[in-house]
């Protein structure tokens, strides 16, 4: 541990904070809230009937990207080419059953859960990813898509109706984490409306955040963990007992910008969020479920919809839950979700986003393969640190 920068969050977090000598301010705030009787946090309930059933016997592959546009339409990208043969049986040649067919890769739902748009796949003038990963709708209503196949080294920009606009980087051309023309297996893209800059979580091959001009695609800056120059040397597996890695571990899985200008980066297998200023200055890091191995605990984040973005929602596809975090202190207030295939449960919850009403949407990869909606039910007292499956009260 290298000092007070590291807040350890999780079960027994107060003890951990004391052990690490974190400033008294954090503790004082926690005590003050307790003294008022209860910790307050946003509450959610799954909507088990959202979205509406897909038309045309369509089914989803790994659902590995999620974005909400300015009209509260929900956009997902999934890997239609990875639908199992005995599930996409109607797409076989010859068809072996009446169901099912692979849905197109990009799907747009209205707030009621109706499918209102679909497109995607190879076309003229661009390289469709070999493995789709991440979708974002920017302030100009353009749709960004990344890819994490070993050859994917680019991002794509389309109109909402799927007309190709721009490709940055080229398949098979990645030159590593210090390449200023290509990426390395991009996980997620967001665009800052104030500066028209795109932040790229880069990615499954590279170990950096990259920033480009969202109109021209010109590289502007990039950095690695702690704001260091990224280094692609293999640093082996994550060890929760070792000092924190000085580089990101792949995949760098999200980079999301708050309204107050802080960039939250998901360093997934390192079980941590690193926070930066938009210029790459390191601010702090926070560990989440630090003993989590393998895929890691920090998959994707979204912000609450109040003007202050008081809360941060973190999807953990290994522990199968969404943490509700007080953004100011980065303290986990509570969590919801559990493993399973029923509504409100997860298998590899991968992506998370919020709409204008504060509702949370999630998508699942692996064999989860769902879009789910969790309805915002206002702020209330936290009664359980681990809420499990949040079903509607009948």
């Amino acid at each position, binding site marked *: 541990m290298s000092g007070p920068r590291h807040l350890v969050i*999780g*079960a027994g977090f107060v003890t951990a904070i004391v052990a690490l000598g974190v400033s008294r301010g954090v503790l004082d705030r926690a005590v003050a809230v307790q003294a008022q009787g209860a910790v307050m946090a946003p509450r959610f309930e799954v909507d*088990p009937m959202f979205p509406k*059933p*897909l038309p045309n*016997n369509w*089914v*989803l*592959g*790994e659902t*590995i990207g999620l974005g909400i546009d300015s009209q509260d339409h929900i956009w997902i990208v999934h*890997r239609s080419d*990875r639908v*199992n*043969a*005995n*599930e996409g*049986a109607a797409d*076989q040649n*010859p*068809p*072996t*059953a*009446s*169901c*099912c067919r692979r849905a197109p890769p990009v799907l747009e739902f209205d707030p009621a859960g109706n499918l209102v748009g679909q497109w995607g796949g190879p076309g003229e003038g661009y390289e469709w990813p070999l*493995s789709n990963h991440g979708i974002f709708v920017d302030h100009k209503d353009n749709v960004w898509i990344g890819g*994490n*196949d*070993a050859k994917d080294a680019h991002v794509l920009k389309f109109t909402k109706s799927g007309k190709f606009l721009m490709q940055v980087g080229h398949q098979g051309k990645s030159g590593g984490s210090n390449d200023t023309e290509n990426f390395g297996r991009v996980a997620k893209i967001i665009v800052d409306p104030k500066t028209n800059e795109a932040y790229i979580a880069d990615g*499954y091959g590279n170990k950096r955040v990259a920033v480009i001009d969202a109109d021209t695609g010109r590289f502007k800056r990039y950095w690695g963990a702690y704001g260091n120059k990224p280094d692609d040397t293999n640093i082996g597996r994550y060890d929760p007992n070792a000092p924190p890695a000085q580089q990101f571990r792949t995949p760098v899985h999200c980079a999301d910008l708050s309204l107050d200008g802080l960039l939250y980066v998901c360093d997934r297998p390192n079980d941590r969020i690193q926070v930066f200023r938009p210029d790459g200055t390191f601010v702090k890091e926070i560990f989440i*479920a630090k*003993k*989590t*191995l*393998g*895929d890691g605990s920090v998959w994707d984040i979204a912000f609450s919809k109040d003007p202050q973005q008081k809360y941060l929602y973190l999807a953990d596809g*290994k*522990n*199968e*839950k969404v943490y509700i975090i007080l953004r100011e202190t980065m303290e986990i207030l509570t969590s919801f979700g*559990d*493993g*399973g*295939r*029923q509504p*409100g*449960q997860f*298998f*590899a919850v*991968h992506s998370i986003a919020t709409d204008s009403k504060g509702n949370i949407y999630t998508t699942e990869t*692996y*064999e*989860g*393969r*769902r879009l789910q909606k969790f309805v915002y039910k206002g702020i209330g007292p936290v009664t359980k640190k*681990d809420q*499990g499956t949040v*079903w*509607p009260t009948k």
Partner: protein
Amino acid sequence: MAGRDRIATQGRGAAQVPRFQVDPLWPKPLPNHWIFGSITGVAVDAQDHIWVVHRGVDSLNPRTEIGLASDPPSAESCCLPAPFVLEFDQTGAVVGHWGGPGHGYDWPQSPGGIAVDAKGNVWIAAAGPPDLAGGRATSTSEEPGGGAGGQAQGTGRGGRGATPRPQDAHVLKFSRTGAFLLQIGKAGRVEGSDSTTALNRPAAVEVDSAANEVYVADGLGNHRVVVLDSETGAYKRHWGAYGEKPTDAPTAPYDPNAPPSKQFGIVSAVRLAKDGLVYVCDRKNDRIQVFKKDGTFLKEGFVSKTTLGDGAVWDVAFSKDPQQRFLYVADGHDQKVWILVRDTLEVVGSVGAGGRWPGHFYGVGSIAIDSKGNIYTGETYEGKRLQKFVFKGLGPA
């Protein structure tokens, strides 16, 4: 207007068929961060409790799905394989659980169907690893190409690190609390479809409690129905397709345009109607054959006859009216439950579609019904769900 039209339609004699609605919040979330593996059997007992058997750890991905089961755990809070056998009450709460290797019996490499007899004893077929002719590429890796296939689907490895167990060739009988009572057949000992002493990957069982007989869908290895004494396990009789002597000669892959096969393909289920008729699911041949209890062939009916691959007729249940007028056929390849008129074996409707949301299916291979006429389904493959469909009365097809 709509109401008048509906009455007029009925007046013209439109078929009335059972209607169902999925209960998206049933069963209750499992305790202890348990998750289902691929479900291979569902049954309802005399108390309307719902019983499930699933493939457990052998069908769950060690790296991505059951992080709490590894040593050291790779996750902090989820998940663990649920015990192989689970008992739910009507509210959907787990009220019993057991299963796994023990003294005096061979726990299956991979379970098949489950049945609860009139005495409350629980029967489990040892079906062996699933037949995967339909092909699948289980998604175990978020990264393309890397790590896929890490799931030892179909190997029946019996838990990580265990030595492979002999091939399933038996059925097991337990008390409802999981005390071992009887094993018929022996793991690793198979003799073919005319054997009077051995089974070969039996897929499912049904008990005729009044006659003290157990009917075995035998199965994935053999090509027959075999009837045994449910107390002693003694052989009584067996038959193949059309009531003929079964053979194990290789047959051509199912072809919907060819004459019906004279032999069973995969005998995936056998069920007894109240009127004494025996319904046999010949899964890959897309057909149900109906017999008398003595094996006399009565008729056959095809369901979704163009279905190839895994086949359309996986399991069958009867409606709860005294006449059992309807059959419900689980079709894990078309992802539907077909509704048939039992008398004519005519398909009059269906429930379900493919997908991962409530009321959708992926590999719906088991079906059972409670005293109120509600349907319960179990999904294998990566469906891994127990679902309930509430009976909403009869309505126009």
